[in-house]
């Protein structure tokens, strides 16, 4: 299955030629979850903020589906 990944913050710098409009298209085995996607992207050891799938923040290793829209954010602080 193919999922569409958009990266935020400075995560984009890790992927040469990152397409700011379309993000990354990542091929995964059917039934794979968020954890497998993060591993595939080489972000398993990177400190991440929240991850959303199809516009909803997810917790843990939720399964993905073909065409899923995944957004990966970094931790933030504000005020």
């Amino acid at each position, binding site marked *: 299955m193919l999922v569409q990944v958009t990266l935020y*913050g400075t995560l984009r710098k890790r992927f040469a030629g990152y397409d700011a409009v379309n993000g990354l298209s990542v091929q995964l085995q059917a039934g794979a979850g968020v954890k497998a996607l993060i591993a595939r992207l080489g972000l398993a050891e990177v400190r991440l903020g*929240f991850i959303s799938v199809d*516009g909803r*923040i997810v917790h843990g290793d939720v399964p993905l589906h073909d065409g899923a829209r995944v957004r990966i*954010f*970094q931790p933030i602080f*504000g*005020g």
Partner: protein
Amino acid sequence: MKVIRVDMTTQTITEEAPPAEYAGLGGRGLTSTLIDAEVPAACDPLGPENKLIFAPGYLSGTTLINTSRFSVGAKSPLTGGIKESNVGGTVAADLARLGVTAVVVEGQAPAGALYLLKIDAAANAQLIDAAAYKGMRTYGLVKELKAAHGEKNSVTGIGPAGECQMAIASIQTTDFDGRPCRAAGRGGLGAVMGAKGLKALVVDQGGKNPDPLADPEAFKASAKAYAQAVKADEFSGEILPELGTAVLVGPINEAGALPTRNATQGQFEGAEKISGETLAQTIKARGGKTTHKGCANCIINCSNEYVDKDGGYVTSSLEYETIWSMGAMIGNDDLDAIARLDFLCDDIGLDTISTGVAVAVAMDAGHKPFGDGAAAIAMVEEIGKGTEFGRILGAGPAAVGKHFNHHRVPVMKNQSMAAYDPRALQGMAVTYATSPMGGDHTAGWVVDKNLEAFGGTLDRFSAEGQVEASRDTQIHMAAVDTMGLCDFAQSGLAAEGGFDHFMRMISAKLGRPFDSADWQALGRRVLKAERDFNRRAGFTNQDDRLPRMFYEEPLPPHNKVVVVSDAQMDATFDF
């Protein structure tokens, strides 16, 4: 170490040593305790009894990084309560290096008279006739004042909105590049400055007489360690320099907490077009500046310089709150229009948050369609020109709501909320409702505590634990604002040993031990003074509430309302 008192009624200036009871106070701690002690709470905010107080943070002027934070305090014409409006730039460091603890502006100049206050290299203050600058916008004002008084002066002043005493008028101060793009925006303190008859504060930047430190070596060692921690932190050391505060657009929108179209939605479909990532890409492609120093002593460089398609300067710095208020909140996904609106607010002397929300309320009421950036620009220009409708906008979102008889007005104590919808982040409901400042995000930013991925432990849709989180953060922030530490340099506090280093630096200036218990006591003291003033000004528990819209109108996409009860709100200040 001195307090300069300026009596605008008689145009006399006196100096005094700071009274002993204010030892260890600067910034918000000093402005709020002085106002509580000296300003009649029932006074007209735009009358002679109110006082406008400028105070650098307690650690401003030291070698500690990111401490050029400036507090401006008064009774607010917008909220009717006490107000501290906090701004960066260089003026806090400039005044502190001259050994000036505070400038207290009292009385009221004769009708029609206008002055500027010049503080020279010897820290002597002088009132100078400023009739020639009447009606001038801030960029033009700074150009003229720097030509007249020298480049090496910071300028802190008001534009036409302040002179017209509009309730959302800001006080603008010059950044590291000498542009009046840093705003003490909240609470309408520009109107107080206008009512005093004070157009600008001109401060020499060559001061070499900061308050002495009791233990310079201890201070130096902790300041060095603290700076290293801020630099090493990923957010303050890497993300903010690259993307600025606009990096918040993406995650807050995704959390469904970005108030959109006058807070009728929590996600903006145009968010990608106005995100921090798009902003940085646009600026770089056009030859502007992303990593940009806005304030003295800053090592984070979260500012930016937005340019047009031809590379010409438009504004600095385009920040998250403005991108929200002039973007999602009015349904506008055009960064160029947002940048123009930001510049206009700085130039006219307006709070970008309240102005954007005033425009949003007008659009929601049907005055103009959401998303019409050109219409928003025309509306803000009306404020600058002082037209009849411009004056209604300049009176703030609640006034606009009354004008159109429109019910949906997202204000607390008459001041608009900021870029975090409390229905999707219940902790912000407590801060907005209970802060003595009115709708204010910096008073107690608990977004991180509401989102697990950012280290939070609270359910953001539940009331549980939100009061405690907001209370703790409000106490902490009252102390931070007293010290003059930049919000974003708080990463140093979170680092291992960082908080202890910060306590050591306070101690090294004070000359006596200072620990976490003193820190808590300081924050509580400031909040108690502010609450005391507001109570005497007529505020009750009923003022610590949100507008009905937040309890009754579910916010898409999560379709939640605020669930923090009135009794829980009333338990926030239990001291």
